[in-house]
């Protein structure tokens, strides 16, 4: 079988770096990848299940990887979230694709 995993780096809320392999063929988004590797305690990420309604999956994008454009609901949620920076995104709105090889993100603090 062709390998469809990509290598990405996630910096957890304690500042620890994790180099992980993320599947791109399992319909997973970045928030779900973080959960599958248990890089944030359960219940502190993905609270709304990935509907862009809680911002518990907020992260800062540190690489210049090309990501899908922000949709209205993501923008609206980020405008109500805390600790938002220019490079903030909602992990649940970023579907993993082969083009994201090398992505580096840092999880935003819990709020």
């Amino acid at each position, binding site marked *: 079988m062709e390998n469809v995993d990509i290598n990405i780096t996630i910096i957890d809320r304690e500042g620890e770096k994790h180099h992980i392999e993320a599947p791109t063929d399992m319909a997973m988004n970045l928030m779900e990848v973080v959960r599958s590797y248990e890089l944030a*305690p359960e*219940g502190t990420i993905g609270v709304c299940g990935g509907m862009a309604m809680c911002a518990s999956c907020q992260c800062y994008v540190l690489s210049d990887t090309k990501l899908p454009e922000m949709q209205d609901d993501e923008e609206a949620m980020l*405008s109500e979230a805390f600790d938002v920076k220019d490079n903030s995104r909602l992990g649940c709105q970023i579907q993993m694709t082969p083009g994201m090889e090398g992505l580096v993100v840092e999880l935003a603090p819990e709020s």
Partner: protein
Amino acid sequence: MSHYHQIDIINLVFNFIFMITTDILIIGAGPTGLFTVFEAGLLKLKCHLIDALPQAGGQCSEIYPKKPIYDIPAYPEILAGDLTERLLEQCKQFEPGFTLGERAETIDKQDDGTFIVTTNKGTKHHAPVVAIAGGLGSFEPRKPKIHNITDFEDKGVEYIIKDPEIYRDKKVVIAGGGDSALDWSIFLSDVAAEVTLIHRRTEFRGHLDSVEKVQELKNKGKINLITPAEVVGIVGDHKVKAVVVKQAQHIEKEFELNCDHFIPLFGLSPKLGPIANWGLEIEKNAIKVNNALDYQTNISGIYAIGDVNTYPGKLKLILCGFHEATLMCQSAYQIINPGKRFVLKYTTVSGVDGFDGTRKEAPKAVVKSIE
């Protein structure tokens, strides 16, 4: 007798009279908690539920009431809000009690092995069995990062509107950009002397009707809209007198806006909170239970069911919560009625006798000769 002793005794008598007593005290009125009421009822055990939210349904009613669920057995599709309604209807005959809008704060094991659970408002509950069905935790408001905001809580700052009447003829500032900020601005525009809605963007996310209504009220001068802007400070001593508003377009521009109340509506997020300090074994933000048997925790008499528990292979799904609740009730029966025999019955065969005097039963087959 010393003065202090008298107070102790008065407290004791007071608590005895006003304490809520029940067989199974359920913390959390989500789907798991509600179904527990039904299963306990079949065993003639009475339940009382505590929830921090003002309504039952847990995540289903707070996060996604209008969204469909596809994996409830025998419902190819059901809205989360409708599931809550059905669960309430199903357990109604067992007359559950509710303490809503209060968070279970402390638990005290009595010498006789029973428990007293006290809420943040001081309401006391007494039961031989406690079932924690707390989901991802108690839903708590997300507080904006304003350095002195906690100094003004209940002194003009409210995160949840419980009684709109307290705003009558007052000056109110609401912050937020979602449905609750829109809906409350609309509602309070008829109650308060002045309503100002502040949001970081000019776009709001809500039902089209609400967005249009706010636009209309703004045009009529019944709602002051300040966007894009943010509340960055609170002014007052002992009581809110004004908020400091920072307008996003001109970084320099900050001004004070007089008001009696500041209501930040940024949604709720679940926090395990006080339960984490009850001496229970916690792992992955959840309570460890014995899943080989009855979902009891490390403290006998305290169970944890639904999303709040963890064990090898745990899945946070509604149907798993239902299963756990059912097994837990059988075990709770043994604690409440030690040694008393009981055998599982099918509801179809034995019917369901409600505590409210109602009875449901399967119609009998007719026995009639055919000539």
